[in-house]
């Protein structure tokens, strides 16, 4: 990991002047980086879209397409907007420096560029890129590519909005005694397998996992991006989760290990969705009665002895696509009136 963070990077140098281009490339190569060259902005953009680079060193004054235009193009390009850019120019006037920074340049170095300063600035930019890549990877692991992109575009802005969505809660039955009866390594390995299977099932159906607590998780369908059939998507994900666990149990049975059962509760309706937390640490989550109900339904699976329980709104959203069985009204703690509960038949197919 340290190599990726501090080792050689692949850099693109754009300058219409040959002497500048060669000298910059020489300095960068002496610092251990590999360097490609472009003689104007248009050629540079073509190369950036074709190959992958860690950092761009950009001249401003160039024929065909100047550095300002390159910066404008990069901001608009979702694939390239995070590419760090260091402007190297001998352009006169502080307003030009300001314009570069406003257009998203990471830094501005005046030519002739001092090699020591160059090294420090490149190190800092690559470090920032590495951290951004880490953050993106983290988001990718927790969300589908579409959702990750949405989060990224919204800049992880704190704040919320009202959405119609489905919330799914799941956990492993009798997990605590199981965890206490086996070596800790085995428990962690079990959890990792469990989460991998559950995450796959959830993201396959357009959901995002918003919380993980021990052996429990909460997933949202329909936020931050709207999902037209969020009820059916959540139920289909639940069915896949149960099916995954059945397959996993076949493996465990073969290894003479105890079976793992999960319970899933799904409720649908209006809720407040958004990033909650501080600017340093925030999570995308949903709040509201619907969320509480989903949690109650999940807990109720133990009492009802069913794998998947849903509320009437989720059932209405299924439009008969998946058969469900009414279990009658159940009084839940925190709910004003008893709630109609339905069981979705899992694993019968």
């Amino acid at each position, binding site marked *: 990991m340290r190599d990726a963070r501090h080792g050689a990077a692949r850099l693109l140098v754009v300058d219409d002047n040959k002497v500048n281009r*060669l000298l910059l490339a020489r300095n960068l190569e002496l610092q251990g980086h590999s360097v490609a060259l472009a003689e104007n902005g248009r050629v540079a953009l073509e190369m950036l879209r074709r190959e992958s680079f860690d950092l761009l060193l950009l001249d401003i004054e160039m024929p065909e397409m100047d550095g300002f235009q390159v910066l404008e193009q990069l901001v608009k390009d979702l694939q390239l907007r995070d590419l760090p850019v260091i402007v190297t120019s001998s352009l006169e006037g502080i307003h030009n420096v300001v314009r570069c920074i406003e257009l998203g340049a990471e830094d501005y170095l005046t030519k*002739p560029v001092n090699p020591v300063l160059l090294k420090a600035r490149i190190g800092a930019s690559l470090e920032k890129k590495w951290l951004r890549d880490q953050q993106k990877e983290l988001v990718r692991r927790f969300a589908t590519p579409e959702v990750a992109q949405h989060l990224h575009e919204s800049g992880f802005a704190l704040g919320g909005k009202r959405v119609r969505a489905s919330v799914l809660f799941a956990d492993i039955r009798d997990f605590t005694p199981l965890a206490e009866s086996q070596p800790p390594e085995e428990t962690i390995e079990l959890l990792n397998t469990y989460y991998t299977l559950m995450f796959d099932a959830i993201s396959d159906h357009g959901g995002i996992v918003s919380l993980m607590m021990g052996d429990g998780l909460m997933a949202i369908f329909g936020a931050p991006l709207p999902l037209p059939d969020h009820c059916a998507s959540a139920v289909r994900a639940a069915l896949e989760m149960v099916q995954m666990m059945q397959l996993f149990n076949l493996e465990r049975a073969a290894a003479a290990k105890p079976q793992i059962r999960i319970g899933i509760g799904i409720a649908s309706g209006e809720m407040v969705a958004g990033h909650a937390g501080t600017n340093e640490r925030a999570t995308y989550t949903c709040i509201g009665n619907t969320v509480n109900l989903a949690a109650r339904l999940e807990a109720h699976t133990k009492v009802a002895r069913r794998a998947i329980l849903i509320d009437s709104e989720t059932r209405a959203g299924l439009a008969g696509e998946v058969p469900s069985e009414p279990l009658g009204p159940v009084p839940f703690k925190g709910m004003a009136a008893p709630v109609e509960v339905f069981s979705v038949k899992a694993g019968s197919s």
Partner: protein
Amino acid sequence: MAQPTIDPATLAELQETAGAAFVVELVDTFLAEAPLMLDDLKSALAAGDGDRFRRAAHSLKSNSNTFGALTLGAMARELELTGLDRALAAGGAPLDALADEYSRVAAALSELRDA
């Protein structure tokens, strides 16, 4: 104008950071490219192309400063900032002065390169 044609400290630093052998190569590149920039300035002046004029002056300024040709760099900078109209008003005289200074720079750099 007690300033030397080539500032020895700037050139020495360049040789130290980029390597003397590489600087020989770089000087050759400059000696091949700079006459094109001077031509570019002249034809931009004749064509009344202010953008091209400014860009050529800018390029020459930047390279001159790299090698420590500070007088040439200052003259090119002046042209970059005052632009085409001033040079036209002066009947192109600043370009002649620039060409003369470049001859001195080229001679000095060739000498240093071969030393």
